[in-house]
């Protein structure tokens, strides 16, 4: 089932590349994000799936639609042919595929990532923090300072957005005079 969902995501991405109407691109991106959230739930990452559905498919789509309202919704035809970017992207893709050949197979319980740190959190997490959800335990307890840093990043981005948008609103107010 995961393979089917992944294939659907690849199809949605191809449609995003081909489509020139930006409204359609944004809606396709919303579909893509919901597919991503479904894949994440299928991969047993329920917390991440919930966040992706609300933030990726919800807030991002609303932000994109707001920007389309303020700008315009048709993409111009490109002036030059995209041969160099295509070659660059394909070369990167082939190098990455070559890199995966040595990686452990999907769902291999002997992969290094399943043997090293994770068992420690799964076995001791409930006893040490009292939180049965290990993701919450790591996020809020073991790595609480990282989460604090993350809120700082969001705060800084919020200040940046406000600073940029306030100038526009002030100028709009001055213009009708």
């Amino acid at each position, binding site marked *: 089932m995961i393979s089917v969902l992944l294939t659907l995501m690849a199809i949605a991405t191809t449609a995003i590349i081909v489509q020139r109407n930006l409204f359609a691109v944004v809606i396709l991106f919303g579909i893509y994000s919901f597919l991503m959230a479904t894949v994440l739930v299928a991969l047993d990452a329920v917390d991440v799936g919930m966040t992706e559905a609300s933030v990726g498919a919800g807030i991002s789509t609303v932000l994109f639609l707001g920007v389309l309202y303020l700008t315009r919704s048709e993409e111009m035809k490109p002036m030059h042919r995209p041969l160099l970017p295509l070659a*660059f992207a394909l070369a990167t893709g082939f190098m990455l595929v070559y890199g995966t050949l040595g990686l452990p197979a999907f769902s291999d319980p002997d992969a290094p990532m399943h043997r090293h740190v994770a068992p420690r959190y799964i076995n001791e997490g409930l006893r040490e923090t009292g939180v049965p959800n290990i993701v919450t335990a790591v996020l809020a307890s073991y*790595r609480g300072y990282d989460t604090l840093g993350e809120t700082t990043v969001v705060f800084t981005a919020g200040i940046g957005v406000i600073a940029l948008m306030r100038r526009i609103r002030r100028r709009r107010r001055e213009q009708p005079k």
Partner: protein
Amino acid sequence: MTVASHYSYWVTIFLAVAGLYIVIARGNLVKKLVGLSIFQTSVYLLYIAPGKLIGGTAPIVSSEFQVYSNPLPHVLILTAIVVGVATLALGLALVVRLKEAYGSIEEDEILAQDRDA
């Protein structure tokens, strides 16, 4: 190594390369940001997919289950999603600001105006 055992990696790579291609090849700034978001979300898959164990369950400890998926990539990607939407919001605010300054969200038109000025 078979196709079935590495399919998730390859779809992840396709998404990353498609996002990269949109960012480089397309001149429209909104489309560029969509490409950047696709690149970002492909990284979520890169981290989460190897953490899955078939027959396992979500990492919420219960006496009824023994096998759990790896919780550490989930924690990292939760942070990445939130930071991703923060950068996206800042990028979109810049697009609105550029539209106000140049009257266009096409890279080619903006560069042409800069050249003429």
